[in-house]
């Protein structure tokens, strides 16, 4: 491959990551089929931020859209990583859960409606602490209910990543789509360094962070179902593929024995090289991105 061709591809690429939450959500729908629900003009803002000197946002950093993807009914919920780090507050959390519950009710009426959740979030919004945590628990409950009837697809594109409690929501999804730029994990490097020291995790080591949490590694371990470039048409194709694919026979988070057997064989006396870890994990029967 010549470097000339590579740069032409790169120039022609329409970045998905550079879009904001509203544009990302809209981009996933069939042309002209989407409309936003409880948008900024409804002004449902966080009631908890103003008393703490934080300016709220009219959509609380969460965009809900309904429409069609590949000709079928779908709801998309996109978190805006640029507002409070995409954190989950009472309102943004309630929007996500309510949207999934409505999709679930739609399925029960016989209209297959899938959900796509765009997670760019550090987890709970600390200013709303317990209501954020409760919202995540309720969102997880709604994912579990909906995914029996229609696929719930999690897309993490970049650059905030998906961390904290919201990584559990990703773990419950029917399918996970990531870019190389995206990260997915329960505890971010800073938190680990704070809790257990720099020997445990050096949060300034960017190569290490992406080697562990990055999309390529998550896909290689079978923790994500698709790895896409930061290219809007590619992202849209992947989402259309998974909404059309339907509910998987067994969800990843229900395959407990496979996971347990993998854990049992690990040597925990040392840290693992992330590259070598792919081999260790593979020995116990994983196939890349497949279940």
């Amino acid at each position, binding site marked *: 491959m010549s470097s000339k061709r590579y740069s032409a591809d790169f120039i022609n690429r329409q970045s998905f990551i550079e879009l904001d939450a509203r544009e990302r959500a809209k981009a996933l729908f069939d042309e002209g089929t989407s409309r936003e629900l409880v948008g900024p003009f409804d002004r449902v803002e966080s009631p908890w931020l103003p008393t703490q000197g934080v300016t709220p946002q009219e959509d609380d950093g969460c965009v809900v859209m309904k429409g069609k993807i590949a000709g079928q009914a779908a709801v998309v919920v996109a978190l805006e990583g640029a507002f409070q780090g995409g954190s989950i507050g009472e309102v943004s959390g309630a929007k996500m859960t*309510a949207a999934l519950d409505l999709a679930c009710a739609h399925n029960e009426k016989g209209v297959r409606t899938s959900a796509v959740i765009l997670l760019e979030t550090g987890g709970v919004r600390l200013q709303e602490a317990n*209501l954020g*945590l409760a919202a995540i*628990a309720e969102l997880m409950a709604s994912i579990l209910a909906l995914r029996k009837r229609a696929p719930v697809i999690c897309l993490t594109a970049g650059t905030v990543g998906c961390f904290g409690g919201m990584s559990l929501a990703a773990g419950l999804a029917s399918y996970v789509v990531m870019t190389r730029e995206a990260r997915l994990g329960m505890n971010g490097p800073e938190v680990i360094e704070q809790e257990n020291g720099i020997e445990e*995790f050096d949060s300034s080591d960017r190569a290490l962070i992406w080697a562990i949490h990055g999309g390529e590694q998550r896909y290689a371990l079978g923790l994500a179902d698709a790895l896409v470039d930061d290219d809007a048409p590619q992202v849209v194709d992947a989402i259309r593929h998974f909404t059309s694919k339907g509910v998987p026979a067994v*969800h990843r*988070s229900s395959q407990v024995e496979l996971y347990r057997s993998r854990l049992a064989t690990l040597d925990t006396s040392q840290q693992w090289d992330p590259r070598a870890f792919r081999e260790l994990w593979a020995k116990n029967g994983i196939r890349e991105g497949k279940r």
Partner: protein
Amino acid sequence: MSEYTGIRGAVWFRALTGKASPMPGDPKSVLTADAPVGNDHARFLCVVRDPHARFPCARHGEVGLQEAATLATRVREVIEHNKNTIKRPIIAIVDVKSQAYGRREETAGIFLAAAAAADAYGSARLAGHPVIALVVGHALSGAFLTHGYQANRILAFDDDGVMIHAMHKEAAARVTRRSVDELEKLAKEIAPMSYDIRDYAKLGLLHKLLHVENPEKPSLQEIRNVQNELVAAIADARSGAVDLRNRLESTAARETRKASLLVRSKLEAQWLEK
């Protein structure tokens, strides 16, 4: 008083089941036992401290990879065995320091292990099992999402040793650039930020607060009272929906979670518009 001591879980597991050991093949940090509650034969689960755990970052009462995966297995067992019979209650006794913060944990995808446990509890609830969380000590952040927060009904003791929160005080103070004292003062004024279980009760998420004089040394009468409360919570769960709507419909939630209810009603109305 609000320090994590790591003994309450084991005390209450023993008080309610008469047992104190893990099931064969399980790590020492996860206690599972079947025991009578009223007319039911319930499954009890509890995560306890194991100073010699295989994973170094899960030796102080944290919920790590093995703990989450074991909980998932032991809850799924009940779902499998009870497919066509009376759905047995599942009771999560909760006293967990936090999730395990480690590099090994992240490398092996602890988010999926935690999701697997939540999946098991949530799937049990959806299948009709009454799932009850009994918070006897700490219920922090990702650890509570993993072990307990998918329950139909949440019971908690009303003393200072009980804490349900998204982040422990020291870390929250650091992140919000406040002193612990400032944080506590602010938290007192804003219900969802409070570290006090009585303020947590105002959010409307709890089924009931229970009082035990000294939860680390309960009397026989207190244990009997808690058993009766479990029986009542199980009956209440069986008579209600399998989803978590009760957390929004409670009297306290109607007051404190007005914004959540507003979002739901607006979204529902707009969903139906053409």
